[in-house]
């Protein structure tokens, strides 16, 4: 009940603001990595076409962060309802947007860490797999994203009024299914 009232009080622009910050940081992180690798490989091209592609990529990455947030929230909502929970999607989506602050902080730390890494001129692939700082960066991204999902469990439990096991299932079943589908597609289709 308390959570329901709080959800209604949460201003939408706070959630949208957090999502915007998260998406911009995600873009900056991947753009920095891409730029560093391209500068080493000497593949930076300043033609009109590449400028168009870069602008297009910027908007797509920003939009994709919002789409992934909405779709994943909707999946968790559907599974929570299927497991006997009762709540409005618009209330849940506010909470699920707020927890993206953790991956956003993760990306800030990763950006600082990545700037202190000196990339070698050759064998970048091996370097990415063996360098301690880069492995740490990978772990920070994984843990911060994982934290985001873990935090959704108590939110689902109290908002949808279901038990802990069902709340964990509402997160784990869709995530597990997506992982298995991803594996299936990468092995047999693409």
């Amino acid at each position, binding site marked *: 009940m308390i959570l329901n009232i709080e959800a209604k009080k949460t201003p939408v622009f706070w959630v949208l603001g957090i999502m915007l910050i998260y998406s911009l940081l995600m873009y900056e992180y991947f753009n920095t990595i891409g730029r560093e690798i391209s500068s080493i490989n000497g593949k930076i*091209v300043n*033609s*009109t*076409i590449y400028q168009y592609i870069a602008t297009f990529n910027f908007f*797509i990455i920003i939009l994709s962060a919002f*789409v992934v947030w*909405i779709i994943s929230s909707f999946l968790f909502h559907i599974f929570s309802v299927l497991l006997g929970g009762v709540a409005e*999607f618009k209330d849940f989506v506010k909470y699920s947007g707020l927890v993206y602050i953790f991956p956003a902080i993760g990306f800030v730390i990763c950006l600082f860490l990545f700037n202190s890494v000196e990339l070698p001129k050759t064998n970048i692939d091996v370097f990415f797999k063996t360098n301690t700082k880069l492995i740490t960066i990978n772990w920070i991204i994984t843990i911060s994203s994982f934290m985001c999902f873990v935090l959704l469990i108590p939110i689902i439990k109290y908002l949808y009024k279901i038990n802990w096991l069902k709340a964990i299932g509402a997160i784990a079943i869709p995530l597990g299914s997506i992982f298995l589908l991803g594996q299936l597609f990468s092995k047999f289709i693409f």
Partner: protein
Amino acid sequence: MNIFNLKETDCKKQLKLLSICFFSAFIIWAVLFILRMSIDDSQHETNISKIDNSTNVLTDVFKAHSTENHNKVFYLIISNNIKVVIINILGGVFLGLGTFVNLAQNGFFAADVFCTVHKRGMSWSKIIEYTAPHSFEMIGIWLSGGIGFYIALLFINMMVKNKYPNSINFKIIIGSIVSIALIITSSAYIEAYVSIK
């Protein structure tokens, strides 16, 4: 018009929605196609193959064609088109973003291939002569884009209005997928066994 034995008004409404989605898919593809055509990039080699595999597929098709291996040409063309169609349809699950990106990319790179071939000496009339007979495959690709957007609309309806898809929606999607399969198979057949000769 009463197809699939369903309510006429519902069916008409959904088919109208699908045709709007199809038209939107065509517009997105065409805008990016025209945009690439209008870019004067004569000072730089675009080298698009570094970021897109469509030109690699094209190279493989040319290699298979030069050895008169028509079955391989057919396989390469149809597998590439199936991938495009699958991404277009499944992109709808991501509120149409995946569909939008794939259509935009497809239109942009298709124009890029034309521009590159033209830059290397082939006249526009020859390019049209080679591509026109099997270009109806584009209808299949736009239709798959249309289904992608249609699925996205169904998702938005579920989220906003709590309205879940019914049998009409599923039958329209399945009917369209069957039509796409027929279009891309016949187009690949014509491309591999008729026009490429």
